[in-house]
């Protein structure tokens, strides 16, 4: 289970100065302060201090094992489910630490939704997949209306409106992933976390997901983990580069991909690591 301690020393990020972009508190929905995650005492990510700006897309990039998915999961307490995981530092959502003892992780995950690498629809109908979160949350309004709105927001409505009662497993991979996005949107989160959402999809389905991300940022804040740097460059406003569990650089995507400030970022994005 998780526990936390707060760090008092100047962070590595603060020492690096302008390689890590700073946002005014009024613009961020989520802020980490010296956040770290340990698995059985071994640090997976450490000393991460960054802000996630509202209605923007932030991409996490870095080599395999750099801790980007671990960091993403820390944003909605998904690491709670991993035995031996421990979180240190703070993850503030509108100023409230997500890891405070009085915070309900289920409520955290309602406000901070997640979409995974592999589409994982429930073996239920398309309709029931989207309605699922509403039902378990005891939603009192019109479920039908919310299902339609969510499917429209996920750019899937026109393709499934005549077969809502059919099994979600009959959809294509790209459609299944958009269904999972619709399912996440149905409970009206503020932040959407996406862990390699298009890595299992073909280029056309990937393109639709990327277009969707661009549309969704009007209403949501999105954090995406991707191995595909071109995808990060296409969809995100800001990019964070992690290496060996540390935040190396975080800045505007346009700038980071054309003129990175840190040598390690340059080496990674030009493929010269190792």
């Amino acid at each position: 289970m998780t526990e936390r301690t707060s760090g008092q020393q100047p962070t590595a990020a603060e020492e690096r100065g302008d390689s890590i972009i700073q946002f005014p508190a009024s613009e961020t929905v989520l802020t980490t302060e010296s956040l770290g995650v340990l698995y059985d005492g071994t640090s997976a990510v450490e000393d991460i201090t960054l802000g996630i700006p509202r209605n923007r897309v932030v991409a996490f990039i870095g080599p395999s094992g750099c801790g980007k998915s671990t960091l993403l999961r820390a944003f909605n307490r998904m690491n709670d489910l991993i035995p031996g995981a421990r979180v240190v530092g703070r993850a503030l959502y509108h100023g409230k630490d997500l890891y405070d003892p009085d915070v309900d992780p289920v409520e955290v995950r309602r406000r901070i939704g997640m979409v995974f690498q592999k589409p994982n629809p429930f073996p239920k109908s398309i309709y029931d997949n989207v309605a699922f979160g509403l039902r378990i949350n005891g939603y009192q309004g019109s479920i039908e209306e919310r299902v339609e709105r969510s499917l429209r927001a996920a750019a899937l409505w026109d393709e499934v409106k005549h077969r809502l009662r059919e099994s979600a497993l009959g959809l294509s991979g790209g459609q299944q992933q958009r269904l999972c996005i619709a399912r996440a949107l149905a409970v009206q989160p503020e932040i959407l976390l996406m862990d390699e959402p298009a890595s299992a999809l073909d280029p056309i389905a990937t393109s639709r997901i990327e277009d969707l991300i661009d549309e969704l940022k009007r209403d949501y804040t999105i954090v995406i983990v991707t191995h595909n740097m071109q995808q990060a460059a296409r969809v995100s406003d800001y990019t964070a580069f992690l290496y060996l569990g540390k935040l190396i650089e975080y800045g505007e995507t346009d700038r980071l991909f054309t003129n990175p400030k840190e040598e390690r970022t340059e080496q990674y994005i030009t493929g010269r690591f190792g």
Partner: protein
Amino acid sequence: MSHRTFAERLDELTEQLHTMSHDVETLVGRAFALGESCDEAAVQAIRDGDHAIDEAEMQIEESTIELLALHQPMATDLRVLVTVLKINNDLERIGDHAVNIAEAFGRLSRRHQRPPLPPELDEMARVSRGMLRDSLDAFVAGDAELAREVGRRDDRVDRLHESLVRVMLTHMQEYNISACLQVILIGRNLERIADLATNIGEDVFYMVQGRTIRHGSRDAGESEVVEERS
């Protein structure tokens, strides 16, 4: 294609551009050296040199686009490739200006009543060719300071050009107007070469530093009354 191959191909590409830049520099020097008593064969030799540069330009452009499409490079690699594309285009244009200079000398040579060539013309050639050489050296060496310094000489070429035009307008009262226009045209082409060398310097600065030092669009100049390739 492996990354090693990408690095090798990038090296090959910059080497090709280096060779092309040397050829362009030489062509400009040869065109200006024709002087006011050259024959058509000498002018044709400059045109032939320009054709070879056009061929090289197309090859470099094709290779650059291929590398961009296949590798989608980022950071320094991206800046180098974008700069190669831009310099490649500028060098091709400079080759055209060399031909313009040679053809203007050719037309001048056919005139019996020729004005004296003002010293501004030699000085413009010296400064603009120096700018071209330094901008290309800056590219090869990745020298941002040298690249930035090139642009500082552009004003001097502009002032020399203005002075040249004034002198030639005065000569028009005494000498053949078309002959005087050829001299103005040679000066104008040298002025454009200096502008393009400045562009190359600015592009090299971007390539090295990742930020731009451009000062906005340059005056495109007045349309010419005599034949000139663009």
